[in-house]
Structure formats: structure tokens, C-alpha cells
């Protein structure tokens, strides 16, 4: 081998080694590119973005790797370095192969020939180390990693449809393929000014918009068309604005979700239509108001020490609040003389209500409201948002604040009155207390026997009072611990007391609740308790379930609980009186009095009068039996029997016919009917989100003759149509039958017999 030939071989070998290095760098490029494209596509949801970023990442990886392995600096000298490093037999003399022979010394020439001989013999077996295995491993790992991310990685790019923040200026709905004839569709959404959301545009026809938004559709058709219409489920079809050409627009304010589609007349006078799209209107949510501090719904204050009530409310709304106030009602007096006064009080902090979330406070001075002990304040916070034209309102529950009545009203018998008009056999709780205290005062003046007898009588009075209140609680018979017999058997019955008694300290003192008639009680048989397997009925909610304290309906739950507590205390009071220990009975009696007073106050609830208040009939016209002005009247029950979804009902027959005869084509009447049925179905689809949308698309494809599998499409549409029809209870139907002359003769003969 000559030196020239050796140089040629070296050059070839250098190129081979460069190719290996290039392959190495290329594998690194592919590794980074593939991993990045998969990961970014998954995360962003945009393949284009993924490819772009991956290209950059791959190029960087390629560059770094090339620099690392010296791809671009590789030449024959680098190859000779490798040769010297990995093949010691060349004795570091490879450079002689490239040197000019004429310039070499004798020794160098001897060495050159030695090297040439070795090179000639072994140049084909020369092998240099490379890192292709490592690069392949990197590529494999990167691919696996990328695939893992692509399959299971999070999707950061797909924002939920409900996100309609002002910053969202691009499409938020799913990608929808537009029909071929519509080249582009752009929706400009202008939300109401009060929402504070700026105008934005979208290229997707299916998207959510805030309630009241003005939507402008701008359509560009791929060719000139004669006219275009939009068909909204909420209204009839409307023509799109635009001269005959390929640009059309339409504007509408949306207050409820719509399903819509476009139809257009093409230049050749044929009609075409788009698929159905949906715009979901996100309604303006009503504001929320929550009492922030731990204010109990029922609060009792000691006046005048506690006369300030601090209210803290947290107000919020999705778009903003406009006003908020406290509506307070002061009630004064008792019984039929209760008076109410309503005031609207503004929050003091902040002075102006605006913004989305506000912590508002107000301290109410009860004295300034003119309240006195025994009076009550009912209030609630009301908040109104900034929606126009009809703002949303919200309010809290009603809170009650009562000022404790510490005054004591004693019943006194006029000194000059010779006769005690109050019957002895029925006393109020306060009277029993007075009598008990009087008994204790006179203890030393009377005999032991008299004392015990009086104490026992007071115990009896206490029992009568307890039974009276027990009746309000729904207890018809005496009930309690250790009591099984009838009170009438023990003590001569309480019928006498009911007949002649006058109950004080009772809820029904002023006969607001009708008294139950004793005879009704006697004749009322509780048969329903014996009925086996009685089905639970909603009517029971309105029925009076007797002799069950839990079911009594006279009072609300809190009052009932208090009344039960009062009855329990009365038991204890009676017990002590019966044991001739009135001093031990007094605390229980006071407790019972306090509870009864509270019940009396709790039941004083203000309710606004509603409905028609007829004027009273003059007494001179009553019960005369004069029917002169009474005449026969006629009434007309309007026909409500109009079948819903008429087009869908008729279309079912068309679909059945098409299914039965696969070769039959749609007539123009069929098309019109199916189109109308599609609009009806779209209206149904709005109320049943997620249903019928595929059927609507299939229907549109069918009408355009673009359906791939007609039978499947027809079945799908038919199913939706059928499901859209509401079910109804069966109705009796007229029966018909041909009457043969023999039938008539037969029946006539039967009658003769």
C-alpha cells in the first residue's frame, strides 16, 4: 500500500466515523424531540405547540451532543488520535501517513513503512469505540417516558366550559367540525355591562355565555349564497343579515340556553344546513348572605344592660352587589293588642355596598328603636345584586331578639268586691304560686290538717293546670310517670273544670285556637290505629293524629319542647304539694311560670296578611233566603287537550315508514316535518342536557343526505323522538262494533223473554 492509498483509506474511515457520530447525535435529537412532542401535546392539548417546542428541544439536544462528541470537529487527525489511543500497535506513528514523504527523516521513513505495512494489513479490522448503544437507550427511555405522559399525564390545556372569566378570549368549547359550506364562523360575545366581563370572540359555535349576553354570529361561506337563516329553539327562524355573497351576520341577546343551526340557499337554489350547536347560558347566580357572627336565632337580652346588638354579615355575588340592608320589625304589646313596626336599617360598614364579596357590619341600638322590656325584634338581612333589569335578591332567616320582661303582674282581687269572681277550681300558675306563698305565710296560724288539706288542693290545681297544657301538647289522657288511670276516676274528672273553668297563662287564652269539644273526643274512635298494614299516606301530614305528643301540631318544635319541659316541672311542683311540702314546690312553680311566659312570647309571630279580605256581610241581609239575585250560571272548561310535540309525533310515522322501506326517499313534506320535529327535539334537549344531541346531528345528516348508515341513523332518531314524548295516564276510549241484524234480533228477543 502506498502512502497515497493509505491517506485515501484514512479519509474514508474518517467519513465513516463522522457518520457514526452523526447517528449518535441524531438519536439524541429524536429522543428529546419525541419525548417533548408527546408530553407537550398532552399537557397543552395542542399538537402544533408540541411539535414546535419539541423541535427546539431536539435541536438543543442535537447541538449539545454534537459538541460533546466532537461531531463537527472530527477530522483525520482526530481519527489518528483515536487510532493511537485504541491501537497501540501503530506506536503513535499514524501521523506519518499524512506527512509529506520528502520532508521525513530516514528514521521517520522507516517508521512510515512499518506503519504502512501494519495499516495495509489491518485497516479493514480497525474498530473505534462509539456510544450508539447509549444513544439508543436514551431514545427508548425518552419514548417510553413520552408515551407515559401522553397516556396518563394531566391535561392543562382543556379548561372547563363553565370558566367564562373575562380573560378567556378564545374558544372554550369542544372542537366542532364545521360543515363544508361554512368556511368560518366567529362569535362575538358581549356580556352585560354589569358583569364587568369584556367583549370577547370565539371560533367555536358551541360555548357557554353569561346570561343576557349579546351574541353576534359572523359567518363566512365558502361560496356565494342567496340567503341564510338561523334556527333557534327559542324562536322561529330568523334571516341572517348580509347581501348575497359569502358574509352574513346575526345578533341576539340570550337569556336562556339555545340549540341552533344554520340553513342557507345556495347559488343553485338548493338548500343546505349546518349541524346543531348549543349555547349554554350561565344564569346570574343570586347573591348569598350569611350572618357571620355567632348570633343565635333566638336571643333574650336583659334590658337595659344589654341594648346593643352587633350584626356581621358576609355578602357575596358572582358579578357584584348593589344594595344590602337589615329589615327589622319591632313587636310590642301582647295578645290581640300586639303592634308591629317595620324599619329598614342600612349597614354602617361599609358605607357603600359594591363589589363581589363584602363583610358588612351594623350595630343596632335597641333603645333607639324604641324597644322596652317585653318587646321583641325580628330582623333579617337582605341583599340585592347588580343584575339588570331584574336584580336577584337573597335574605337570611329571621332572627329574634327579645328583651326580658322582669316586671311582675299580680292578680289582685278588688278589696271592695264582695265576691271573688275567679272560680276556685281553676287557677293559673301565678295564682297557684300566690296561694302557695300565702299558705306558707299562714302556716303557723292554721292547723297541720288544714295546711295539708290546702297543700293537697293546690296540688290538685297544679294537676288541672298541667292537664290543660298537656291537652295543647296533644295529650288527651293523663300521661306520665306512674300514672295509668283516668283522671276522672281519681279526682272526679276534669270535665267539670273544662266546662266551667277559665284557663289563664295558656296559649289559647284568647281562643285563637279552637277548643276541642269533649263530645268529639268521646265519639272519636281511633279505628285507624287498628288497621293492619296501613300504607303511609301524604294525607297524614295534614291529619290530626290524636293522643301522640310527638305528632301534636299546635306549636312549632321549640315551643313544644318548652311546653314539655313546663309540664315536667309542673309534675314536680304537684308532687311536692301532694307531699305537703309547698316550700319545696315553689321553685318548680316559678320555673313553670317562667317557661309559660316564654312560650307566650315565642308564639307571638308576625305574619303578613295575604289574599282577599272580603267585606263583612251586612247583618240585615243575612239568613233571609232571598234568591232573587241568584241565577243559574255556566262555566266552560277550555280545551287543554292539545298533544305536545305534534311534529315529533307525526315524524315517528315517517321514520317507521323509512325503516320499513329502505329504498324510499324523503319527500319535501317529510323534510319539512322532520325539520320541525328536530326543532322540537332541540327544545326538549335543552331541558335534558346530554340527551338527543347525537340524534339531532343524525337528523341533520339525514336531511342533507350525508348519513353513512341510514338504518342506524333512523333508529337513533326514532329512539330520541319516542323518548321525548311524555307518558300519560290511560284514558277510557269509545268502543265501536258492527251491529249485525242478527245481533239486534238476539237482544230484542232476550228483552222479550
Amino acid at each position, binding site marked *: 500500500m502506498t502512502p497515497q492509498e493509505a491517506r485515501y483509506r484514512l479519509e474514508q474511515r474518517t467519513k465513516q466515523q463522522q457518520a457514526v457520530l452523526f447517528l449518535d447525535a441524531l438519536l439524541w435529537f429524536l429522543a428529546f424531540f419525541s419525548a417533548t412532542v408527546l408530553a407537550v401535546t398532552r399537557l397543552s392539548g395542542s399538537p402544533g405547540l408540541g411539535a414546535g417546542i419539541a423541535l427546539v428541544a431536539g435541536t438543543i439536544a442535537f447541538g449539545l451532543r454534537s459538541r460533546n462528541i466532537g461531531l463537527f470537529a472530527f477530522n483525520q487527525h482526530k481519527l489518528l488520535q483515536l487510532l493511537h489511543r485504541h491501537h497501540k500497535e501503530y506506536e503513535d506513528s499514524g501521523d506519518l501517513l499524512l506527512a509529506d514523504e520528502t520532508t521525513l527523516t530516514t528514521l521517520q521513513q522507516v517508521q512510515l513503512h512499518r506503519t504502512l505495512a501494519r495499516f495495509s494489513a489491518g485497516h479493514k479490522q480497525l474498530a473505534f469505540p462509539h456510544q450508539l448503544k447509549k444513544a439508543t437507550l436514551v431514545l427508548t427511555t425518552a419514548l417510553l417516558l413520552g408515551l407515559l405522559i401522553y397516556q396518563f399525564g394531566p391535561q392543562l390545556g382543556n379548561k372547563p366550559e363553565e370558566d367564562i372569566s373575562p380573560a378567556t378570549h378564545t374558544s372554550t368549547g369542544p372542537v366542532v367540525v364545521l360543515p363544508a359550506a361554512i368556511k368560518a364562523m366567529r362569535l362575538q360575545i358581549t356580556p352585560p355591562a354589569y358583569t364587568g366581563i369584556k367583549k370577547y370572540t370565539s371560533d367555536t359555535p358551541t360555548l357557554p355565555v353569561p346570561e343576557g349576553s349579546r351574541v353576534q354570529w359572523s359567518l363566512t361561506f365558502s361560496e356565494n349564497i342567496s340567503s341564510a337563516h338561523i334556527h333557534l329553539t327559542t324562536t322561529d327562524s330568523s334571516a341572517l343579515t348580509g347581501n348575497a355573497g359569502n358574509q352574513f351576520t346575526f345578533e341576539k341577546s340570550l337569556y336562556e340556553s339555545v340549540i341552533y343551526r344554520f340553513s342557507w340557499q345556495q347559488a343553485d337554489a338548493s338548500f343546505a344546513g349546518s349541524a346543531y350547536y348549543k349555547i349554554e347560558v350561565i344564569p346570574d347566580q343570586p347573591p348569598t348572605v350569611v350572618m357571620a357572627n355567632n348570633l343565635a336565632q333566638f336571643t333574650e337580652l336583659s334590658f337595659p344592660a344589654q341594648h346593643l346588638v352587633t350584626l356581621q354579615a358576609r355578602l357575596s355575588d358572582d358579578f357584584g352587589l348593589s344594595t344590602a340592608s337589615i329589615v327589622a320589625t319591632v313587636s310590642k304589646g301582647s295578645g290581640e293588642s300586639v303592634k308591629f313596626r317595620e324599619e329598614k336599617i342600612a349597614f354602617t360598614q361599609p358605607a357603600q355596598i359594591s363589589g363581589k364579596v363584602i363583610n358588612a357590619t351594623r350595630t343596632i341600638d335597641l333603645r333607639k328603636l324604641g324597644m322596652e322590656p317585653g318587646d321583641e325584634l325580628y330582623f333579617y338581612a337582605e341583599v340585592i345584586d347588580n343584575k339588570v333589569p331584574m336584580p336577584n335578591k337573597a335574605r337570611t332567616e329571621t332572627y329574634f331578639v327579645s328583651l326580658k320582661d322582669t316586671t311582675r303582674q299580680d292578680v289582685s282581687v278588688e278589696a271592695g268586691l264582695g265576691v271573688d269572681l275567679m272560680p276556685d277550681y281553676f287557677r293559673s300558675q301565678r295564682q297557684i304560686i300566690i296561694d302557695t306563698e300565702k299558705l306558707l305565710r299562714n302556716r303557723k296560724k292554721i292547723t297541720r290538717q288544714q295546711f295539708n288539706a290546702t297543700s293537697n288542693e293546690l296540688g290538685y290545681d297544679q294537676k288541672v293546670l298541667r292537664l290543660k297544657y298537656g291537652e295543647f301538647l296533644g295529650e288527651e289522657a293523663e300521661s306520665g310517670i306512674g300514672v295509668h288511670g283516668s283522671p276522672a276516676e281519681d279526682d272526679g274528672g276534669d270535665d267539670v273544670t273544662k266546662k266551667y273553668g277559665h284557663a289563664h297563662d295558656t296559649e289559647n287564652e284568647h281562643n285563637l285556637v279552637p277548643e276541642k269539644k269533649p263530645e268529639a273526643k268521646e265519639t272519636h274512635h281511633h279505628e285507624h290505629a287498628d*288497621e293492619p298494614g*296501613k*300504607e303511609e*299516606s*301524604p*294525607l297524614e301530614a295534614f291529619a290530626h293524629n290524636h293522643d301522640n305528643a310527638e305528632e301534636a301540631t299546635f306549636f312549632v318544635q321549640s315551643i313544644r319542647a318548652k311546653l314539655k319541659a313546663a309540664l315536667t316541672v309542673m309534675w314536680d311542683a304537684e308532687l311536692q304539694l301532694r307531699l305537703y311540702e309547698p316550700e319545696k314546690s315553689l321553685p318548680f312553680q316559678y320555673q313553670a311560670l317562667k317557661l309559660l311566659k316564654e312560650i307566650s312570647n315565642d308564639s307571638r309571630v308576625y305574619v303578613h296578611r295575604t289574599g282577599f279580605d272580603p267585606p263583612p256581610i251586612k247583618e240585615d241581609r243575612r239568613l233571609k233566603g232571598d*234568591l232573587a239575585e*241568584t*241565577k*243559574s*250560571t*255556566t*262555566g*266552560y*272548561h*277550555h*280545551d*287543554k*287537550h292539545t298533544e305536545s310535540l305534534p311534529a315529533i*309525533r307525526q315524524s*315517528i*310515522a315517517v321514520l*317507521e*315508514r323509512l*325503516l*320499513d*322501506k329502505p329504498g324510499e326517499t324523503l319527500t319535501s313534506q317529510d323534510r319539512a316535518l322532520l325539520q320541525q320535529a328536530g326543532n322540537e327535539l332541540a327544545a326538549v334537549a335543552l331541558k335534558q342536557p346530554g340527551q338527543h344531541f347525537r340524534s339531532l346531528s343524525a337528523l341533520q345528516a339525514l336531511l342533507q343526505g350525508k348519513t353513512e348508515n341510514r338504518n342506524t341513523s333512523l333508529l337513533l332518531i*326514532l*329512539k330520541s*323522538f*319516542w*323518548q321525548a*314524548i*311524555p*307518558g*300519560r*295516564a*290511560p*284514558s*277510557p*276510549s*269509545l*268502543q*265501536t*262494533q*258492527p*251491529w*249485525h*241484524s242478527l245481533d239486534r234480533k238476539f*237482544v230484542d228477543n232476550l*228483552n222479550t223473554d
Partner: protein
Amino acid sequence: MTFDPLFTFWPVILTATGLSAVFVFMEWRRAFRFRLLRCLAQLLMVWALTALVLRPAVPKNRAENDTILLTPHFNAAQADSLKQLYPHAQLRQIAGTDADRAVSTWSEHEIANTRTGFAYVLGDGLPPTVLDGIPEARYAFLPGHIPNGITGLRFSRRTVVHQTITLSGTLRNTYNGTRMILEGPGGAEDSTQLKTTAEAASFALTFTPRQAGRFMYRFVVKNKAGQTVDHIPMPIEVRGEKKLNILILQEFPTAEVRYLKNFLADHGHRLNLRYHLSRNIFRYESANTGPKKVTRLDEKLLNDTDLVILDSDALKNLPTTDRQQLEASLAQGLGIILFFNDAPGTNAALQSLHIPKFAALKQDTVQITLLGQSVQLRTLSHYMPAQDGFQPVLQAGNRSLAGYTFSGFGKTGVQLLTETYRFVTEGKPNLYAALWGPLIEQTARTRQQPTRIRVITPEPIYPDEPIDIEILTAGIKPTLLADSVPIALTEDVVLDDRWLGRVWFGEKGWHTLAVAEDSTQSGLYIHEPEHWQAARISYQHQLNRLRNGPRDAIAVQTTKPEPLSPWIFFGLFLAASGFLWLAPKL
């Protein structure tokens, strides 16, 4: 030898003998060659002609009915056994039979005209159209196997919208179906579990159509793995509700009638109501019809009314003329439903309406079953015991609480349940409809229909099969239109106004039978031949079993004269006459 002469035997013989003598004598006298042969030719010619008239036959021993007829789905082993037993028997098959052997095929026409008959029929049997042509034929029928599918189906032909329809039947289920589903246009309607590998698994499926029209339901049979093993189309024609004309008379308004009125008005029935408020003062109401004041019950009003609902007090206070008219209209077909404002009793007015007898009930509430639910209702503490002419509609156990009696062409219904409106207030309109619907429907007048169409040919019917139609009319001569094509009809020779016709439909799918003189229409579905084969074959088996004859028919050997072919005698005549023509020229 026997003869089957066309004319009387002996005159023919005498004539032939005379003619022979004359012709032989004349031939003998002719002076030509072959005298003897010519005389013999004359004899042969005359007697050959005589034989053509006398039609001689030669006795021959042979088996009667020596044919084994194969039909589709025959059992090959049975055919082989029979052939082995009767080697001289002939095998024949009908069209559509894949006998897989050299067997000649008989057309329907040939079967009808076969003189020898057939002893055995194997397989599905002869179709009804062939059986019609051989009414006297008797044979041993050895049925083949019935394919999987529905072999029998029962359901009410009165399919009205919103009313529950039950389809019950039997399924030959050797394909291991575990579940049967009834699918309608809106998806699955009902399903039931099946006995696997049952020869006849019974099923009952229900559905409630939401719309009137012609629909294709489907029976889907699935196996344990959830795979569909069979798919049977079920065409159903659902009819719309026909509205009633109802008159309600009340002595005073009640909640019961108010809810009933609302129920009927909401369903589109035409109502007129009259409440008696005070003396000579009434309140009139109407719904789904023009405002109308019903002041008196005349014939025209009641003829236009299908049902009168009134309470016992209103009936008692009706003027005599009104009551008489009510009775007369009842006899002519009017329906009456009676309410009792208190305990039901009897008086002259009630007796005239032929109301049923009542018996006291101890309790004032009863437990009845409606739509599969047990519900409790109040009653008037009476019930109607079983009696002649009484038809119960609602029963608690064996005690009838609602029902009707016949009176002429009309019916008088009674409802003893009270406070039924609670179903409406409880939001159970279906229970309310189930309680009142049957009583109202069955008691109301049955309107006269001019014609009725009935398809006599049992389903399934396949393309190009004859379909027998029966039309009953009320004295008119009908014109049957099959898909707008007039069809000839013949009137029954015995029964007036019963007309029969036969049609053929060539295409599968729905077809319409209509009477031109009336709006009466009836839908008929022609199935694809591969559907409902199990039902068709099962029905065919039943028909063929009715023709079952002796099993040993093929073994009977009889001697039967076999006529000699007339061609022989004709040939002899030609030969003899030809010789006679040729002999003078030789």
C-alpha cells in the same frame, strides 16, 4: 279384462259386429289381391275403433298411496326407515325441501291432482294453501323439528295508545337464551328471564305505547354471555283513543265528580255538566265542546251521548219525562254510571235502570289491587254480589265494588268506592285512571261501526301468499281496497252481510286494508320469509296433524284395472286403414 266404455257396452258391440260383417262382406267381393289380408284389416280397423270407445283395462296388483312425501325439515332417518320398510314406495319432495337425494319434486298443483295420493308426509307438513286443495286427503304425518323462535303468541288486538299491552307466548329455546327483551322504538320496554334449553319456555312482556301508529317492536333473545341469539320483529298497530260524549248530572257538586270531570276533560272527552244548586237554579259546565245548557233530556241529546254519570238524588229528582227518555235511551245502547250520595238502596227510579242488587259490608274501607299495587279505599259499606247479568269491573276479593248490568243494548254501571280523588291529590294519576278508566269504557255506549275487517289467515303471512279477509257489515255492500286496489268480494251464502275476499301482497312491510264506504282501516304486515318460521311451522304441524291417517296405509295391496293405452288401438286402426288404402295399389 274390464271395460270403461264411453257409451253403453252392448250397443257398441252389436254395432261393431254389424259393421265388421258389412265391411268384410264388401271387401270380400272386391277383386283385388290380398283378399284374406284385406278382410282381416277391415276387422282390425273396426275393432280398434271399438276398443277406443270401450276403453279396455287389464287388472293389475299394486299398492295404493305408495308415495312418501318429504317436506322441509324432514328427518332423514325416518325417511330411510320407511324406505327400508316399504321398498316399492316412491319418494317425492315439495319445493323448498333439500332432500339431498335423487327425489323428484312435486309442485303444489301436482299434489292437488295426484291420483295415487301419498301415505306419509315427513317434515314441516303441507302448507295451508296445498291442504285447501286436497280437503279429503289423509296421511300419516311425521313432523320434523321446529326451529328456535316464538311458536305461539297471544295479545289483545285492541291496542290503544297509553294502555298497557301484554304479549305472552311460548318460545322454543334450545339455543340457550337466558333473557328475552321487548324493544320498542324508544328502546327496551320490558324483559324476562327464560328457562334455558326449554322446548317451550313461556314468557309475558308488557309495554305501554305513547303514540298511535304502526310500529316495529322487537323480541331480542340473549344468552348468558349477553350475546343476541335471536331477533324477532313484532309489528304492532296502535290505535288512538276515541273520545266520549259524557253528560254529568248532579244534585249538588262533590269533590269526587269535580276530580272525575277534570280527569275526563284533560283527556279530551266532551263533557256537559249540570249541578243542581237550588230550586230551579243550576250550574252548567262544559268541556271540550261548545257551551251548552242541558235543561231536559231529550232523545237527540241522549243519542249523541255515550255515557251519563248521575247521582241517585239527581235521578230521583228528574222529571218523569226525562227519566222515561233515559230508560228508553238505555235500552238503545246508552251507558249510565250511578253514584250514591249515601247508602245504596232501591226505589222505582233505580229499578227502572236495572241496577244490581247490593249486600251490606261490615267495614267502610276495602283493600283492592290496582296496577299490581294494593291500595285502600273507602266504600259505601255495600258490595254487589254475583248475580245474573252483572259484570264486575273492580273487586276486593270476591266482592264487586264497581261493575255494570246489561239493559237492552245499554249498560248501567255502579261505583261503590268513594273518595277516589285522593289518588290525584297524592300524585298517582295512573291509579286513578286504572280505577275509573275500565268502568267508564266498558259502561259507555258501544257505537255502531258500519264495517269490520278481519284477516282470517293466521299470521305470519309472507309475500305472495293468499290472505283471506272477512268483512262484516251493517247492511251495506262493501268494497275492499287492498293498498287502494279494489278486491272482489263474495257474500256468505248462509249468513247475510258477511263478505269474503282473498288478496295477495307481493312486498314485505305494512299494507292497508280499507273499506271504501267507511273510514274503517286495518293494517297488515307481510313478514320476510325468514322471520317467524317457528310460529309458521308450529301452526303447519297443527294443521297437518288434523289430516292424520293410518300409519300402515302404504302396505295395502289392491288389484286395480289398469286401462290399456288408447294409442295402441289408434295405431292399429291407422295400420289397418293404411293397408286397405295401399293394397289396391300394390
